[in-house]
């Protein structure tokens, strides 16, 4: 369980995290979604106490991270990829962390094998590819067999097999009742990995919502209609609940009606249709629209609250 309460972080005049409150629950995979630079890594640093919050606080399993006598057994974190001494071997990198908690060498061997780095464990970490560095980071996150696993952009640099492996790992960890919190800037990745979403933009909370709910809300029915009488059709369909948008001289995008309803209305009024195609907006588009709003309205708090309310509803 991770609980952030009015968490705020300013660097100089720059606000990186702004009054952020959320709870990450055990037993599910929670995605932490936001564009690059939205404050995800900063939030994770605040959780680990690497940076001190300007205001507010964050607790892990009810306590401040620094107050645990054995923090590696509470939270395992994959930090930004460059958190390894480039001159030290992968094995020794894990060993020095294990030794701070008296974790035996056998556990280090176990994890080297677990993430598939046996062949390169004695190589200096500075010679690793990004994918190998990520695996090393995941090994280091699991070293203490922690209750809370927190991964910052874990799929960066991984090949498709590696990505699938991470997804399965996250699911397994969550099914064991652990708290799994992973950040990403890719909605499509979250849709297949996460159960719950915390979406931020510019350090603000935009949405705290289950993935299913997010998909339901954002898979609106938009229908693409091609007709030589597009103008006539647009007038015909005009209704407060319906929005039509001309996408070309003969193309309309209609929201609020199904393809069947549009086809029937057109037939009743002898309007010729050349194409009638329901569109599924991708989640990536929905996510981008959401964060674009955040960027556009970030100076105007009331508007932001409305946006938030609309999503939460």
């Amino acid at each position: 369980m991770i609980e952030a309460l009015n968490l705020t972080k300013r660097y100089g005049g720059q606000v990186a995290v702004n009054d952020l409150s959320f709870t990450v629950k055990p037993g599910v995979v929670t995605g932490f979604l936001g564009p690059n630079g939205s404050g995800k890594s900063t939030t994770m640093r605040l959780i680990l106490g690497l940076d001190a919050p300007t205001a507010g606080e964050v607790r892990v399993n009810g306590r401040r991270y620094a107050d645990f006598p054995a923090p590696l057994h509470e939270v395992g974190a994959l930090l930004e990829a460059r958190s390894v001494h480039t001159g030290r071997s992968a094995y020794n990198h894990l060993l020095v962390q294990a030794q701070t908690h008296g974790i035996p060498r056998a556990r280090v061997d176990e994890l080297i094998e677990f993430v598939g780095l046996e062949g390169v464990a004695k190589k200096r970490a500075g010679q690793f590819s990004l994918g190998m560095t990520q695996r090393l980071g995941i090994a280091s996150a699991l070293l203490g067999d922690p209750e809370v696993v927190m991964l910052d952009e874990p799929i960066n640099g991984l090949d498709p097999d590696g990505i699938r492996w991470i997804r399965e790992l996250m699911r397994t960890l969550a099914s064991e009742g652990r708290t799994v919190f992973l950040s990403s800037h890719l909605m499509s990745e979250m849709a297949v990995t996460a159960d719950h979403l915390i979406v931020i933009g510019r350090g603000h909370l935009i949405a705290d919502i289950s993935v299913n709910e997010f998909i339901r809300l954002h898979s609106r029915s938009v229908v693409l209609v091609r007709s030589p009488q597009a103008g006539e059709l647009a007038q015909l369909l005009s209704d407060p609940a319906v929005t039509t948008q001309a996408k070309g001289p003969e193309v309309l995008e209609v929201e609020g009606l199904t393809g069947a309803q549009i086809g029937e209305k057109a037939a009743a009024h002898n309007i010729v249709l050349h194409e009638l195609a329901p569109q599924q907006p991708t989640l990536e588009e929905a996510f981008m629209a959401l964060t674009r709003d955040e960027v556009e309205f970030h100076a105007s708090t009331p508007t932001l609250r409305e946006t938030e309310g609309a999503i939460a509803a």
Partner: protein
Amino acid sequence: MSGSLTAPRLLSRTSVERMGITQTHVAVSELTKLRTVRSTRYALFAGFVMTIAFAIIPALISASRWNTMTVQERIRFNPLLTTLMGVNLAQLAIGVVGVLAVTGEYSTGMIRSTFAAVPKRLPVLWAKLGVLGGVTVLVALPATLIAFFTAQAILRGHKLNGRDIALSFSDPGVARAVVGGALYLMLIGLFGLGIGATLRSTAGGISALAAILFVVPPLMNIFPTSWSNAISPYLPSNAGRAVMQTSHSAHTLAPWVGLGVLAGYVAVTIGVAAIRLRHRDV
């Protein structure tokens, strides 16, 4: 590589015996850190070699020139200072080990892993101090002993007023100077650690250390002699080197007082580093 990935089944939850952070655990980890990075090993080795080499070389030169030296030169010749000359060169290498022990972590980002594992942070600083202090003494003490005995063996047989110029370890002040030379190197290592932890930058740390050791002392000459004489003995390197003097002159501190003054500088630097470490973001 992906073929070798184990299915993501978690290694049983009880497989890890939970002990947690202790100062001893953190010290073991810091010793591993110091051992497993090439740059610190090389710099320690360089310090060891320089201490010995720059005792042997001047001893060889003096021994071979002895018969052609003037009486004045022979009287001024100090067989102890000659054989501890290497300490003055080795101090930069040992100081750099201290700087790198901290700044190497900041420059690579390792510090985030370190402080994620030990979020209270200060145990890391204490462990680094203890481990570096121990390791530098283990390197520097054999080095000054080897330097002393080898150089004296080279000087043996050369005479001044009928007496052999070579010193024995039991001669007054000799043991103190040789052991003190090793302690001086240890303190310079810790000084480097404190400076590195305060500045967090390898270039900045090494520059600051080199400036304090090699640039500031000669700068004292720009002041009037009375000022210079009053200030110079208290500069970190001059104060610390008093422990290696056999003759006490008017403008040097007493041996252990001098080493104590250097220890004071180190303590203040470490104190500043500790305060910054607790409160700064990483």
